[in-house]
């Protein structure tokens, strides 16, 4: 008795020690997740990155200045001129509200941080949270060890880092945390059957809906899992508790978010959840009736239920099909459709196909984005199957679905990353478990071995006897999952030591080598993650750096151009540019733009596309009809900045051609290829984009040699008739042109009589034949 008590005390001490160590490790993981994302601040500066974050930053500024009510009612007239955009109803408010309340909290604690600082550091903070959420999720699936490993892996997985470095103030930064948290609560409810966690699940789902359009992934994945459980005969009351409240509360809460609203009940993305909701009720009813009836009676009732169920099902499906068939895209948004039919987007929606993050990835991308996790995931899948529980089957489903989706769109690699981390965490932890066990229980000295084994055995025996009934019955209702996990392992150990006096072990020296190899693999992962973060994912895209033999060169042309716009143009002037730069212009220059990165109106974007692909005069007319004063183009030919407007031009033509039939892609291609050199077509050489990009280019030191396309341009010397150069930045990366004013009508006529100046004659003709380009 004394020995058992002593052993119990020792194991309690060990557990307590383990707990503290675990908390300490988690803390370090959090710090690591935060600090690895600071490369961007250290290498560049504390600045908001790229395009979308600038919009989020602007919205957050508005929120902190004007308060929440004005924010909901905000109609933004600085963008999509002349249409404007109702921000409150078209934005996912999760990120903005999170950062806004963080700022408010800090300020009320008398910590005066600027909104920008808070925005810059939101993503790293939430990465740490995501790592902790991963720990919780994996712990629910496979125990503490796997949890810690998975959290450590997630803290530095490059795929997630690419979206959450400091300054990358985008929806995904908080959404991935919300995604993992929702899955954790779902699995927790599944394991515990507690309504408390079911409510938290609905709330975290609500947070996810607030944060990112990717919430549809959750509301399709969870029903799929429920259906899978039902089909494979794993229905239980816990499954019901985990699912039904989520659908009811989750849908109600989701419809509170203005941008989602009635979509929760109107679009096909959500229908699967309702269908499964009906099915789970039917199944629950069947199980209930089975419980109260005798087997014979049950058979009769079953036939009845199946008949009624089938009729109801048919009716529901008929209604479903009728409602879906009435909409042209069958109720699915283009992005979702391109997931189901991967070739859809490239055929029908150039604007979706044009975005680089919607392209299908190749194998090196997996290696860059999840690195060695790609090797470990299959082991994790198999570990999840032995033994298969509700929680582990959910993880398998999550991994399989997200792996498939990531294969369709690079962007969804982000959703795969947490699943890959959890799976690899499980695999690594199982492997370490086996190999360290092999070393531990074969350690040369027999005395120490027996004493350790003894210790474990006694410890196990006491536990096993008390809880035997629970473990044997294999009822997966796990009030205390953790304990049971421990018991399982321990039970394995005892049974083995009792039966065969042989543990499940491998030869000692081989195990040691394998452990070294696994550590090396982990070390490679860390090295890779740090390297990718430092070199690939920390560039803010608004400031560029390049290392030349002469030393470091910094290109700050974008901010130079936006500052020029802010200081030298009227506050109500309209600036036209391709949509990529819309958010930055509104946020940094505070000028009205025609189109921006929120690509909600394809026709409007096509109009700008048509303008830049038309000859100067037609372009002037289109721009003038939109009240545009300045046109901004991005040009990389002088310094070799590859993603400039000429590079994107083929998409502008394609998008414009989709709406305006007179713009034909064929006219811009020679032999199916896109040229700007001597082989370029006349249409190409005369279009506005060519002229604005290469105007006076021959006067530079490059003398008409485009460094990006690596060729001499086709038409070097030309004059602009309807536009004048207003500003060109230091490295020519941004060029701003002003629309020339239309000549005075009478003066123009007189001039036309007296002189044959090209510009005025053009202008007069333009006026004579002038028509509204909208007609």
């Amino acid at each position, binding site marked *: 008795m004394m020995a058992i008590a002593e052993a119990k005390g020792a194991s309690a001490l060990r557990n307590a020690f383990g707990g503290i160590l675990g908390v300490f490790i988690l803390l370090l993981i959090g710090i690591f997740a935060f600090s690895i994302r600071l490369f961007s601040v250290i290498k560049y500066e504390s600045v908001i990155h790229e395009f979308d974050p600038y919009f989020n930053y602007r919205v957050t500024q508005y929120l902190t200045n004007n308060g929440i009510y004005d924010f909901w009612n905000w109609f933004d007239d600085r963008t999509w001129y002349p249409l404007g955009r109702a921000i409150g109803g078209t934005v996912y408010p999760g990120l903005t509200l999170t950062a806004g309340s963080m700022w408010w909290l800090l300020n009320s604690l008398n910590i005066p941080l600027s909104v920008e600082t808070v925005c810059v550091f939101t993503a790293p903070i939430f990465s740490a949270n995501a790592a902790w959420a991963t720990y919780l999720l994996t712990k629910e699936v496979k125990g503490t060890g796997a949890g810690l490993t998975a959290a450590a892996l997630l803290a530095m997985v490059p795929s997630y880092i690419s979206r959450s470095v400091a300054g990358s103030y985008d929806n995904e930064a908080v959404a991935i945390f919300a995604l993992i948290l929702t899955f954790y609560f779902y699995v927790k409810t599944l394991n515990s059957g507690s309504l408390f966690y079911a409510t938290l699940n609905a709330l975290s789902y609500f947070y996810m809906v607030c944060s990112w359009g990717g919430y549809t992934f959750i509301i399709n994945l969870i029903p799929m899992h429920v259906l899978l459980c039902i089909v494979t005969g794993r229905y239980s009351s816990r499954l019901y508790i985990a699912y039904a409240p989520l659908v009811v509360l989750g849908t109600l809460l989701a419809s509170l978010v203005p941008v989602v609203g009635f979509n929760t009940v109107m679009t096909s993305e959500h229908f699967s959840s309702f269908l499964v909701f009906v099915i789970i009720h039917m199944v629950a009813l069947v199980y209930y009736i089975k419980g109260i009836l005798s087997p014979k009676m049950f058979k009769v009732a079953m036939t009845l239920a199946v008949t009624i169920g089938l009729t109801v099902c048919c009716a529901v499906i008929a209604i479903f099909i009728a409602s879906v068939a009435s909409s042209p895209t069958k109720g699915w948004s283009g992005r979702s459709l391109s997931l189901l039919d991967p070739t859809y987007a490239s055929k029908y929606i150039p604007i979706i196909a044009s975005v680089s993050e919607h392209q299908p990835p190749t194998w090196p991308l997996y290696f860059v984005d999840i690195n060695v996790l790609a090797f470990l995931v*299959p082991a994790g899948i198999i570990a999840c199957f032995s033994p298969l529980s509700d929680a582990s089957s959910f993880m398998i489903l999550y991994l399989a679905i997200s792996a498939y989706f990531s294969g*369709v769109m690079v962007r969804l690699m982000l959703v795969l990353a947490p699943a890959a981390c959890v799976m690899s965490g499980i695999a690594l932890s199982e492997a370490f*478990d086996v190999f360290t066990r092999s070393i531990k229980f074969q350690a040369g000295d027999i005395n120490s071995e027996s004493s350790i084994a003894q210790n474990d055995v006694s410890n196990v025996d006491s536990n096993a006897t008390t809880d035997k009934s629970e473990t044997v019955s294999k009822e997966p209702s796990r009030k205390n999952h953790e304990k049971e996990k421990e018991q399982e392992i321990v039970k394995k150990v005892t049974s083995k030591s009792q039966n065969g006096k042989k543990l499940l072990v491998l030869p000692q020296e081989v195990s040691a080598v*394998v452990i070294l190899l696994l550590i090396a693999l982990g070390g490679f992962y860390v090295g890779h993650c740090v390297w990718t973060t430092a070199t690939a994912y920390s560039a803010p895209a608004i400031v560029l750096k390049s290392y030349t033999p002469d030393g470091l060169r910094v290109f700050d042309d974008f901010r130079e151009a936006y500052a020029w716009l802010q200081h030298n143009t009227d506050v109500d002037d309209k600036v036209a540019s391709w949509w990529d730069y819309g958010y930055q212009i509104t946020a940094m220059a505070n000028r009205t733009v025609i189109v921006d990165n929120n690509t909600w109106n394809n026709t409007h974007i096509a109009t700008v596309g048509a303008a830049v692909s038309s000859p100067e005069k037609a372009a002037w007319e289109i721009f003038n009809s939109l009240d545009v004063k300045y046109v901004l183009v991005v040009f990389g030919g002088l310094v070799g900045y590859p993603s400039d407007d000429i590079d994107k031009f083929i998409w502008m033509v394609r998008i414009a051609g989709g709406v305006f039939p007179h713009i034909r892609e064929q006219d811009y291609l020679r032999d199916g290829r896109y040229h700007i050199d001597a082989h370029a077509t006349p249409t190409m050489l005369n279009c506005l984009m060519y002229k604005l990009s290469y105007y006076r280019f021959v006067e530079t030191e490059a003398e008409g040699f485009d460094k990006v396309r690596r060729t001499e341009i086709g038409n070097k010397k030309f004059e602009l008739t309807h536009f004048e150069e207003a500003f060109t930045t230091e490295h020519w990366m941004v060029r701003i042109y002003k629309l020339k004013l239309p000549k005075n009508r009478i003066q123009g006529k007189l001039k036309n009589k007296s002189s044959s100046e090209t510009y005025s004659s053009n202008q007069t003709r333009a006026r004579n034949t002038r028509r509204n380009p909208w007609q």
Partner: protein
Amino acid sequence: MDPRNPLLLLFLAIPALISLSFATSPSADDLVAELETLRAQSPSGVIHLDDRAVSRFLTSTPVPRPYSLIIFFDASQLRSKPDLHLTQLRSEFALVSSSFTDHHASSPAASLRVFFCDIEFQESQASFSLFGVTALPHVRYVGPHHHSPRDSESMDQSGFSRLAESMAEFVEAKTKLPVGPIVRPPPISPRQIAFLAVALLISAPFLIKRILEGDTMLHDRRFWMALAVFVYFFSVAGTMHNIIRKMPMFLQDRNDPDRLIFFYQGSGMQLGAEGFAVGFLYTIVGLIVAFATHVLVRLRNTTAQRGVMLVVMLVAFWAVKKVIHLDNWKTGYSVHAFWPTSWR
């Protein structure tokens, strides 16, 4: 679908016909009747032309001809090139032809004087130069008033991506005649559908019974395990990329046609075989780890364990090394750690 086989006989018939009618220049009605016969003999209504037929029906007839021709230019040696889609376009052309014929089956003969034809490059090179066709795919319309084949109007290159629909538009625009709905043969015939439905109905009770008993493949976890691992393999191999971009499994070396290129340098693109090879390497390591932790530990024989572990470790090590090497080669980046400057 391919109308060429029954046409073999026809090749023999055409010269005979020509030689028969050579004595006297054939009248317009004769030519139309001849074309109609030829059309009736082809299952999809596409007439196969060769150099002699071209001269007979196009170059040696007085203008205006009482008929117009829509000609598809084909080359059997280029059919193996996947990016030209010649085989697919040819069958789409046959679809347009048969749809047109079906649509006008009951209408007066005048509207039927539009004939769909194809020409093969190897046997009719002279006609290709006559038309001035240098690039494929190519579709031409020769109207009644076109003097020489060079005057005829060609279909826009960009239209080919939309297959039969754009060809039908082209025909409608040139001939001013409606083509009618394009009838595609369903992927499975009605008889097959009926058969499947009956099979499903018969098997339904058994299936339901087995599902209720929990005794199907769906209840076998090994099935799900294999499926999950396969889906993973499918994705990391970049198969979706190959499907969407229609990438070939391998390329032929331009400098040395006997050599095949399996690996493409540059991270934006990959070849089919390359993806599967690396996907296999990705997957095999995980399977090895799982094998060691779940199967090998149950083995009793320590020597066997040792031997298998050694092999398995070598394979896994090689696979990881190979992928790292391939990735560095393909992307041109090499990962390195950051050491403190004082350490160097």
